[in-house]
């Protein structure tokens, strides 16, 4: 008979091993799914997980693309993870991402067509501020009126989407192209263009920012008092209060940081790979980043790996469609399965299975 037994302490081994195991299980389950669809499972898995990096045909192009796709995920997830550790649940990073993009693009469009080295730094500041501002709404509502930040931040995503549409159709519309929504292409405005820093590497300022954020978060969580407070508030709220943690302040700080980072991600995207403010600008980075944060164990280094993996599933998913006619929904299924297997496996971090002798049924 199999019996469940609660571990005295969560298993450190499984905490680290589970994400890897979840990836392997996702590959296996994916292979079964592809086989059922009548596709060669080995080829499918190879296309999704290996070809974007190692293929001779695509590798040199898609390796840099991996950075472009992963950078916003990592940047957003690092911020979210800080809050998640303190049990502060910002689910609305997508909205903060949109607002950051709008603020950043707004600065650029206000200066157009002036040259000037100061424009891009101003956009960066505006982008972070836009995301911060949008995150302050759930923060203040929570600290003042004790509303639920999960619901408020999530619903504000839909508000942000409407503002985005209004901007693309109205205020920020490119006046030079009659009738079509969407702003000027920032990639064609040198002072505002978040271009590749080195040709064909995929490294733009957003990638640099993600790296800085990861280091910053790592130092903060392991070395700084604030990191200690965050961990304490998450694990032992009562003890945290005795240690002098002010819950309201922590809510504002955590939502503020994650909002600002999501805003930055949006700004770097709209001025670089995205190129312009358009109605369909937001493609779900803010939501996928939640998977990245959890898959990375809320640890900055883990988040880098998880972000790269999720970026890989996007790019590999496209290759799978193109080369093998896998359905497009396969990417979403993959991402969903990753989180699903991880959550299921995390069970054994806290519990263990015991084989015991028992009567046969």
């Amino acid at each position, binding site marked *: 008979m199999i019996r469940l037994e609660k571990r005295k302490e969560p298993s450190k081994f499984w905490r680290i091993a589970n994400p890897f195991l979840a990836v392997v299980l996702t590959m296996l389950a994916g292979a079964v799914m592809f086989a059922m669809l009548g596709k060669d499972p080995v080829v499918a898995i190879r296309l999704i997980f290996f070809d974007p990096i190692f293929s001779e045909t695509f590798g040199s192009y898609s390796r840099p693309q991996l950075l472009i796709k992963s950078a916003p995920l990592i940047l957003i997830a690092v911020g979210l993870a800080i809050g998640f550790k303190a049990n502060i649940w910002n689910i609305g990073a997508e909205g903060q991402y949109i607002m950051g993009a709008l603020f950043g693009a707004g600065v650029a469009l206000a200066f157009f067509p002036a040259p000037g080295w100061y424009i891009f730094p101003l956009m960066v500041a505006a982008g972070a501020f836009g995301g911060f501002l949008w995150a302050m709404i759930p923060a203040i509502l929570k600290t003042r009126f004790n509303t639920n930040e999960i619901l408020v931040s999530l619903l504000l995503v839909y508000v942000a989407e409407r503002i985005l549409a209004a901007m693309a159709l109205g205020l920020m519309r490119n006046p030079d192209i009659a009738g*079509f929504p969407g702003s000027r292409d920032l990639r064609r405005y040198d002072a505002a263009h978040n271009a590749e820093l080195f040709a064909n590497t995929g490294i733009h300022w957003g990638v640099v920012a993600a790296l800085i954020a990861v280091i910053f978060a790592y130092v903060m969580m392991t070395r700084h008092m604030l990191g200690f407070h965050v961990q304490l508030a998450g694990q032992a709220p009562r003890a945290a209060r005795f240690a002098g943690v002010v819950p309201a302040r922590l809510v504002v700080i955590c939502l503020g940081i994650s909002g600002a980072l999501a805003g930055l991600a949006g700004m770097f995207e709209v001025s670089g790979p995205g190129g312009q403010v358009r109605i369909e600008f937001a493609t779900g980075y803010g939501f996928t980043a939640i998977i990245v944060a959890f898959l990375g164990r809320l640890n900055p280094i883990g988040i880098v790996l998880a972000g790269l993996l999720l970026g890989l599933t996007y790019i590999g998913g496209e290759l799978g469609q*193109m*080369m093998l006619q896998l359905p497009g929904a396969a990417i979403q299924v993959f991402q969903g399965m990753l989180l699903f297997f991880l959550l299921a496996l995390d069970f054994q971090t806290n519990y263990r299975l015991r084989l015991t002798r028992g009567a046969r049924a």
Partner: protein
Amino acid sequence: MSLKKTLTASVLGAALAVPALADTTKVGFVYIGPVGDHGWTYTHDVARLALEEELGDAIETTYVENVAYGADAERVMTQMALSGTDLIFATSFGYGPDMNTVAARFPDVKFEHATGYIQETDNVGLYNARFYEGRAVIGHIAGKMTQTNKVGYIASFPIPEVIMGINSAYLHAKAVNPDVEFNVVWAYSWYDPAQEAAAAEALIEQGADIIMQHTDSTAPLTVAQDAGIFAFGQASDMSAFAPEAHLTGITDVWAPYYIERVQAVIDGTWEAGNVWHGINEGMVGFAPMSDLIPEDIRAEAEGMIAAIAAGEYHPFTGPINRQDGTPWLAEGEVASDGDLLTMDFYVEGITSEIPN
């Protein structure tokens, strides 16, 4: 183009160019929605399959669905070019900037952009369908058949193509029913069944007894059937989804064009063009007219289709005033293609405003 960009482009092009297999022509399709939408993307995929059927072993086709505008589209098209694709069809208007960026890097690959307007290099061709011709016909049917004099219109994005469709349908409904009113709801999506269903419900609540859609899902039709009213399908024959509500619908017929263009690539005669085909060329078609439409109205509709196809009638023939009452087309004057393709105003009589 700056020196840096030129260098980047040539380095990328030289380092990554892959010679295509000489014997098979590879054709790639970039879709904005899922192939199962039964609307816009579905019709392009039907045409892709027809293309395979027609040209057989001479070609190989592939597609990527749900490709977002921007960086994703640029990457998908680049990957297609890298894998030796000879001709890429990108089937949504927002792919313009991305397609032109990729086209500049891969001068040997041919590109065709549906409903686009940006043509920066000579390997980018544009094609579009005169859907407003079809809208005129279903507008006529709606004007004749509505009892409440209220027609509900589910629109996607306020771009010239959609505004043109609303104007065309309204003008022809109004011509046969001076009391007709159009209520327009903007879904801000080409394909969002839940949103489209909600829009249909809102329109029905406002009294609409006929629904038209410029979005791609079948949801509005099923809502209409449940409410016991009529509706028009979109893009493909959607009658099976709501046989008691579906009157007819404009269908998108891309196959002849795709076959012609791919054949041109095979023959080595492909050149970038810019075409706008209508009922006459067969790019705009109709789902079978339902028996729900009274016979005389069906005959009128058929007559109108024939007149448009023959070039005897243009749906935008003056006198037509703009919404604000200023004259647009004088008596007998026909709208120019340029005017239509940049249309950003409603015609006189429509009471709502274009979102801005």
